[in-house]
């Protein structure tokens, strides 16, 4: 891509996020699209603070999500409460290392990496760092893409709870941990949504 292309901002233009209508940037606050009446903004409103807030909330929920048990499996009287990590360990010990790796990736690695990625994006964009802008954009797209795949654990619990209900013989119950895990995933998704990737390209200096 050519580096010296002008930005819409510099041309006094503003695009609608919903219908794609390009309007003139009048500089007025609380502008709305004349066609679809969705709000218009040059950059997502309070993107940094929103993303930070949601990210922090997600991080706070991530702690109980890992500490509290997410699932109770009871088979013939043997009640077993599992947290995410203990589930992974159990899978690994009981001879399904492949499954253990999948669960570990989806439930522990991905959220952590998401946190790290978003923090990196926020931090670097805030400092208007010109460093690896294109890669950061890719990272953002990746974060957006894998967002909902982190719900794997929640899906597993929901499915098992629905399927395994044999009374005394076998029983699966969701425990509070899974709620916090779901909240973490949802909040990280919101966080990545509220981050405006255009901020990556906003720099004090011109584009590299």
């Amino acid at each position, binding site marked *: 891509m050519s580096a010296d292309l002008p930005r819409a901002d510099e041309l006094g233009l503003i695009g609608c996020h919903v219908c794609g209508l390009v309007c003139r940037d009048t500089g007025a606050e609380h502008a709305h699209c004349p066609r679809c009446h969705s709000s218009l903004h040059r950059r997502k409103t309070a993107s940094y*603070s929103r993303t930070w*807030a949601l990210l922090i909330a997600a991080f706070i929920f991530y702690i109980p999500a890992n500490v509290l048990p997410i699932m109770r499996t009871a088979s013939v009287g043997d009640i077993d409460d599992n947290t995410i990590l203990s589930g992974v360990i159990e899978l690994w010990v009981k001879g399904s290392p492949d499954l253990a790796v999948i669960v570990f990736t989806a439930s522990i690695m991905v959220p952590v990496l998401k946190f790290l990625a978003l923090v990196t994006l926020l931090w670097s964009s805030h400092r208007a760092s010109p460093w690896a802008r294109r890669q950061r954009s890719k990272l953002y797209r990746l974060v957006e893409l894998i967002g909902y795949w982190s719900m794997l654990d929640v899906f597993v619990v929901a499915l098992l709870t629905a399927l395994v209900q044999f009374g005394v013989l076998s029983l699966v119950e969701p425990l509070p941990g899974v709620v916090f895990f779901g909240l973490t995933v949802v909040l990280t998704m919101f966080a990545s949504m509220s981050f405006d990737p255009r901020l990556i390209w906003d720099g004090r200096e011109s584009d590299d």
Partner: protein
Amino acid sequence: MTDQQTPSGGALPEPIVRKPRVNASFVWLIPVLAALVGLSLVINAWIKAGPTITISFQSAEGLDPGKTPVKYKNVVIGRVTSVTLSKDRSHVTAKVSLEKSAEGFATADTRFWVVRPRIGLGGVSGIDTLLSGAFIGADVGESKETRDEFTGLEEPPAVTHGAPGKTFKLHTDDLGSLDIGSPVYYRRIQVGRVVTYQLDKDGKGVSLQIFIDGPNDEFVTKSTRFWNASGVDVSIGADGVKLDTQSLATVLAGGVAFGSPMGPHDETPADQGAEYRLFGDQATAMAPPDGEPKYIRMRFDQSLRGLKVDAPVEFLGIPFGRVVSINLDFDEKTQTFPVVVGAVVYPQRLGRAHDKLVALARERGDDAQLSQMMGKLIEHGLRAQARSGNLLTGQLYIALDFVPKAPKVAYDPAQKPLEIPTVPGSFDRLQEQLAEIVDKIQKIPFDSIGKNVDATLAELNRTLKQVNGDVLPEFKNTLQGAQQTLGNANNALSADSPLQQNLGGTMQELQRTARSLRVLTDYLGSHPDALLRGRRADAPPPRAEPPAATQEGSKP
């Protein structure tokens, strides 16, 4: 990036302006809320977290860190967090975090034990743990003193705190086959169990603690008797053989039974912790109360083969006590070995007789001591005697009986222990008499008698030979001669013999002679002159002559 060309400002639509509804800074409410939720979780966990205690067990069998719950009345009050081996490797230490609500369990007298499936003779317990896995059972006491280190019990306690029922104490000589958890039966229904047992401090007996579950504990009254139901009781009576046992389990594992004696008795329920004696069997348990045991001593100058410790002592046939010791003594004066028999007697077993004797003794001003009473009785001939209780086995028992014409003995009532004079046993007297008879028989000179008889018999033999050889043939000849003679005589005397006929003829002739003689005499009577003149001419015949007159003249 869309269009390369710069669009003209006028051609583009103007955005419309509206008032915003939400301020962006409200988004910070979300992390605040999250923080609040997180904080509430932390506070909740902190509030819920109870004390952490450590319990040591012999083995960690069934203990699973993070899983094994601690239960009280089947409610989870905590969980094992870790299980470690002790430093000296003698036991394991389980760390248990109790819930806040279970704070009261970290007190001094709380007991913990691992509930595992147990199969014993007394029954099966903890079968549910087969499926659910072992758990730690807890039983809280009443202590207020807090503690965080416990030693786990290896066996579940037989009684939990607060269970309805009462504890009683039993005393016995030995434990027998009883054990912790052995059943206690009332009318063959299990109503309790043995809780603990320990040796008495003096080592002379065993104390058992039993627990009777409510509401059956009220059947334990002040007059209740306990007995060991461990054995099989076989009794042969008039109604056949009777086998008596509480249950098969008690035969193997032991048990205690209790009941009230027949007849009027105290029905007041016993107090918690009341003490009782544990009898060996039902019969002794149901016997009248023994009262205070007394020790007596007897000195026998005879062999007491067949007398055993525990042999009964009877007073006029009533069980009075039992033999507790049999010892040999040496008497220097007579150079004999008397046997000293010690016995424990229960004067109260005499029942009314005892009461009356005591009353009499009191009246006389004596103290009611056994020795005083015995003194009087001994004066009247009370003696101890070893008698044979069983002719087959030769077992002896001691009988206290009144022996008529017993020789007077010196009696010292102050002597301790009380010594009862003895007389030789009836069996021994019988033996003595038999011996005397044997002695007398022995004195008979069987040898010389035998010799004499032998000689006599030889003589007789000789005589008989002589008789046989000489006398008998002669005798035979004589007899033959006699037979001939008799035959002749027979012939001579037979009806058709000439002698007989001659005799008949002779007799007739004689008759005829006699008749003519009478005629002559009659004629001469009436005609005496005929003697001189001779017979006259025939006169006319007489008119009627009585024939009888003629007959009379037939006698010679």
